[in-house]
C-alpha cells in the first residue's frame, strides 16, 4: 500500500491506495503521525480520502483509532471520505463510523472542516 499526501491550506489530504492490512498498518500509521506532527503548527484538519482503499483489516482500524487520538491531542479535525462499500461496512459494523467523521466525498469533508 502507498499513500499520496497533498496540502490544501492548513488541511492535509491523505489518499491511501490498496489494502490496509496487518503488514501495511505500521507504515501507514507512521505516515499519518508524521503528517500530524511534521509541520511546525499542527494542521487544522486531516482528511483521509479512502477512494483507493480496497480493504481494511482490524489492524487497519487500529491505525485510525490511534491516529484519531493523536489528532485530538494535536487539535486537528480528522475525517474520512469516499469509502468503498466494503470498507464502509467495516467502519459501520465496528462502530468506527461513530468514532470518526465519515463523509461521502472530498468536497463534503472539506466543506464540513471549513464550516
Amino acid at each position, binding site marked *: 500500500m502507498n499513500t499520496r499526501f497533498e496540502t490544501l491550506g492548513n488541511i492535509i489530504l491523505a489518499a491511501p491506495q490498496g489494502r490496509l*492490512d*496487518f503488514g501495511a498498518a505500521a507504515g501507514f500509521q507512521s505516515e499519518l503521525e508524521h503528517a500530524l506532527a511534521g509541520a511546525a503548527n499542527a494542521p487544522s484538519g486531516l482528511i483521509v480520502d479512502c477512494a483507493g482503499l480496497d*480493504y481494511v*483489516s*482490524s*489492524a487497519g*482500524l*487500529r491505525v485510525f*483509532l*490511534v491516529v484519531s*487520538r493523536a489528532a485530538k491531542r494535536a487539535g486537528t479535525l480528522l475525517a474520512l471520505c469516499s469509502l468503498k462499500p*466494503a470498507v464502509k461496512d467495516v467502519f459501520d*459494523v*465496528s*462502530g*468506527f463510523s*461513530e*468514532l470518526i467523521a465519515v463523509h461521502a466525498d472530498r468536497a463534503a469533508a472539506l466543506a464540513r472542516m471549513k464550516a
Partner: protein
Amino acid sequence: MRALADLLVGGDGPAARAFENLILALIAVSILSVVLEATTSLPGWAAQLLRISEIVVVAVFSLEYLLRLIVAPRKAAFVFSFYGLVDLLSIAPFFLAGLDARSLRVLRVLRVLRVLKLQRRVLETTVTERTRELAERNRALIDARRQLESELEVARALQIAILPAAFPTRPGCDGAARMIPATTMGGDFYDFIELPDRRIGLVMADVSGKGVPAAFFMAVARTNLRELAMHHAYPSDCLSCANEILCTQNPMDLFVTVFYGVFDPATGELRYANGGHNPPCVRRAEGSIELLDGKGGLVLGAMPAVRYPTHAVTLRQGDRLVLYTDGITEAFNAADEAYGMPRLIAEIQAHGNGAAAGLVERICHSVAGFAGAAPQSDDITLTVLAWHAPP
C-alpha cells in the same frame, strides 16, 4: 625443521602469531635502520649497534624465508610469488655483498616493500574480524527467530487453551464450534458460559492485531467477559462493563469486537448485544435467513462510556444460530476475491438442517475450498447452535 616450520609459519596457533609479530617488529626496525644510515652520520657505537641489528634482522628474515619455503606446497610458486620476491630481495643484498657492500646498499631500501606484509596482516585481521562479526550476527538472528517462534507458540497455546472444550449439555439444543488459527496467529476466540438458570452465554470475538499482544488482550477480555456474564443478566450491561475494564487495561491500543448473546434453552429466546462484531445469522427451519443486525456499539477497548443496546430474537424449533468472525467472510482466494456474506448465507441455507457440528464442518470446508492455495491471513472461527426445543 619441518615441525618448526609448521609451528611458526604453517599454522594459526599462538606460536605462529608471536612469530609473525616478531617479524613485523623487525621489519620496522630494519626500515628504521635503513633510514638512519642513509640520512645521518652516526657516532661509532650507534653504527656498531646498527650493524648488529642488521645481522639479527637478516638472520631472522632468512630463517623465516627458509621456513616459508619449507611449508610452501609448491616451492617455485612461493619463490616467484610477489611476497616471496619481496622477502628474497630484502635479504639477498646482505648475502651478495656482506655488511659493507655500499654499491648494493641501495637495494636494501627494497626492504620497505615488506611493509606491504603489514598491510596484508591488517587486511587478514579485518577479514577475520568481519567474518566473526557476521557469524555472531547470524547466531543472534537465529536466536531471535527461535525466541519469536517460541513466543508465537505460547500465544497459540494460550489462544487454544482459552477456548471451551465442549458445548454445555442442555436438553433441546446442541452446539459446535471451530477455530482454525491463521499461520500468523490472529486473535479470535469464542466461549460458551454456563449461566444461572441453565441459560448459556455465547461469545464470539476478534481481537485486533496478532501474536503475543493479541493473545494477552484476548485472555484479559475473555476472563472479564466470563466474570461479568455471571453478574449481569443483560448483555448490554455485560459489554459496557467489559469495555470500561478493557479501556483501562490497554497499553497497546488494541480492541476487540464482541458479539455476546444469552440463550435460554427452555424458551429459545436469545438476548444479545454487539460491540462492533459481524452480525450473526439465524437460519429459520424452513431455510430463510435473518441477520442479527440490531444496532450495536463501538468495538470494546477503544473508548470508555459506550452504550450497547440489548436486542432479542426468539429461535423456533429447528432453527440454527450461526456466529462467525471476519476470517470467514474475508477469506481471500488467489484472485484476491473475498469469500463474502452471500457465499456464507448460501452455505447455511443449503446445509443447515442437520446437527450443529455438521454445519460447522460444511462451512469450514467451503471456505477452505474457496481460498484454495492462498495463505490464510486471519483466524477462521465459527459457532453453530441448533435448537430443537426441549422434549
